């Protein structure tokens, strides 16, 4: 187990190094004059030159990379061109917001997937199954940002039922920063009204993010439930006279869950990067929106940092999912084939 994790970690570091080379190269080779991008075209030549020195732009690319990597390893991604401060500080600020959002969305995904998936699997080939199937197709076909806009209009604009924008109503003070998660911090400091308000703010964007994955993963779960229900071991277990409920919830669900869990893990991990449209719509001050801003503004240091951070998170989420899957399905242990 420990060996497996160490091996995964080493492999992950290798892959992340590859990712960093990739992104660094893209960010350095392609764009025009970095100094102009950073300081604007009317900045004085001296100011631009100072920046070039600072970013080692005169060095050959491999050397630039090594210097950059050296700084990164010390936790220094350089300064953002937009916010004019250390990128690390930006990330400190934006990452928790997105993580909080994505985690709630993840909870939705898990609950929704298992709920709908089991429902469809249990009632396979009935109207319930059909309805869930149709829902899943709609889920595939409707992009999250369209869902987000619809939710915003419905709940925030028409019904005014739920606070929709930002992380907290402007009348409230954010809780002291402990974890960066508003709900958690507010609970820890005993500000229940704040926690509730922050939670309400999370609802819609999380839902917009979760709906697509839910309906699709539910279908994956449903189909492996149906697949496995024709397996010999299900017939055999039925033959032992085990109660039907136990058969479905235990004997069928556990071996069927792995593919859906893998999918959910992937979805969850990609939410981190793909949340930007939803973050934009709900004015959510998250890392994804920050990353997109960085990209649109060619904020090169920030781009590299965001991609690396997302890569790292992606890697850890995948590893955790693999561990969960291995815990559920002994066949997957020992780093076995998928």
């Amino acid at each position, binding site marked *: 187990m420990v060996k497996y994790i160490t091996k995964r970690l080493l492999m992950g570091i290798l892959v992340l190094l590859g990712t960093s080379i990739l992104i660094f190269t893209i960010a350095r080779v392609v764009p025009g004059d970095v100094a102009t991008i950073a300081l604007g075209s009317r900045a004085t030549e001296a100011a631009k030159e100072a920046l070039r020195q600072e970013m080692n732009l005169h060095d050959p690319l491999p050397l630039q990379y090594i210097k950059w990597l050296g700084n990164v390893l010390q936790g220094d991604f350089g300064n953002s061109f937009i916010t004019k401060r250390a990128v690390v500080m930006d990330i400190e600020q934006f990452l928790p917001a997105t993580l909080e959002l994505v985690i709630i969305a993840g909870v939705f995904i898990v609950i929704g997937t298992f709920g709908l998936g089991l429902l469809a699997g249990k009632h396979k080939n009935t109207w319930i199954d059909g309805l869930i199937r149709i829902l899943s197709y709609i889920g595939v076909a409707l992009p999250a940002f369209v869902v987000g806009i619809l939710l915003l209009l419905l709940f925030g604009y028409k019904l005014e039922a739920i606070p929709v924008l930002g992380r907290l109503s402007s009348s409230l003070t954010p809780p002291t920063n402990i974890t960066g998660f508003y709900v958690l911090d507010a609970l820890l400091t005993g500000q229940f009204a704040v926690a509730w308000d922050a939670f309400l703010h999370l609802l819609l964007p999380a839902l917009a993010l979760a709906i697509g994955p839910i309906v699709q993963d539910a279908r994956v779960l449903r189909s492996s439930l149906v697949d496995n229900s024709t397996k010999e071991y299900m017939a*055999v277990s039925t033959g032992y006279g085990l109660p039907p409920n136990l058969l479905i919830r235990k004997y069928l669900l556990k071996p069927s869950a792995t593919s859906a869990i893998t999918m959910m893990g992937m979805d969850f991990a990609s939410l981190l990067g793909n949340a930007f449209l939803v973050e934009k719509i709900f004015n959510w001050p998250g890392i994804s929106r920050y990353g997109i801003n960085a990209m649109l503004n060619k904020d090169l240091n920030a781009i590299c940092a965001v991609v690396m951070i997302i890569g790292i998170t992606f890697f850890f989420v995948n590893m955790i999912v693999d561990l969960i899957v291995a815990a559920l399905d002994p066949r997957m242990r020992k780093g076995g084939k998928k």
Partner: protein
Amino acid sequence: MAEKILNIEDLSIWYRTYRGYSQVVDHIHLHVDKGEKIGLVGESGCGKTTTMKTVMGVLGKDLIHIPNGTIDFRGKNVLTMKQSDLLELRRSGVSMISQSPMSALNPVFTIGQQLMDILKYSGKYNPRDKEALKNAAHEALTSVMLSDPDRIMASYPHQLSGGMRQRVCIASALITPKDLLIADEPCTALDVTIQDQIHHLLRELVEEKKRSLIMITHSLGVARELVDRIYIMYGGNIVESCRTEDLFTSPSHPYTQGLLSCVPRLSGGGLSAGIYGYVPDYVNPPKGCRFCPRCPYAKKICETEKPPMTEIAPDHTVACFRFGGEEQEKGGEA
């Protein structure tokens, strides 16, 4: 005559397939008496497993269609049973050793977890008495010659060899006492030496505790050593049934004869030519006798009509126009 524990009358089972119904089991009659060991012998794919799974009621309605027939177990028709009765039937009435040990165990639970659940829901034990459950499981595993029950209980199926898995399957079918045991080719993955031991175990179990056994196999040798009465199945029909001794002394159905001749003898003497042709297509089975296209004695009538089961000697019935029906006299020689 002894009490019939299982009585199958005129049963047909059709699989739903993309080409239409696959008429796998066709009007079969079969019965098992209390304390009797019967053998169901036939080539691969002739419907042995299908029949027995239907007896257990584990084939879903979306998979099969039963156009006619009844399966009476202890006097109650399994096909029309309520869910609760069915559960009861499986808990105390019948158990089945699956043919495919590789896929008969749930891959994500340890053997122990699976055995314990069977015991817990069997109604024979107090579900809270962990100790008793564990002992029962241990006992079952040792009875099939698995030497280290603790380790086996803690293992997942994929950690066991095929032979071990097969023995685990056997153990879980024997773990609680049942009136009827269906053994579906229980020894395919086992060495002849172990196979021999398992057969011994099964025989003991049935004989000592007055239970009944259906032994499914395609090996006539196994049937000969183990059972009292044999049903020969071909293409979804039961073509011959008789006491074991009679089968080897006076095989009557052409298929039975062919089958016997095909078995390579330990005494040497070369190989037979095999039976001409291949098994029928179940979606469009031959209209008359299903063996007719391969039968050296086939006649006109065999193509169009199904031969009835005819008793040619006490306890010896054959479904062939060479015996019985109006063709009986002429059919003797060919």
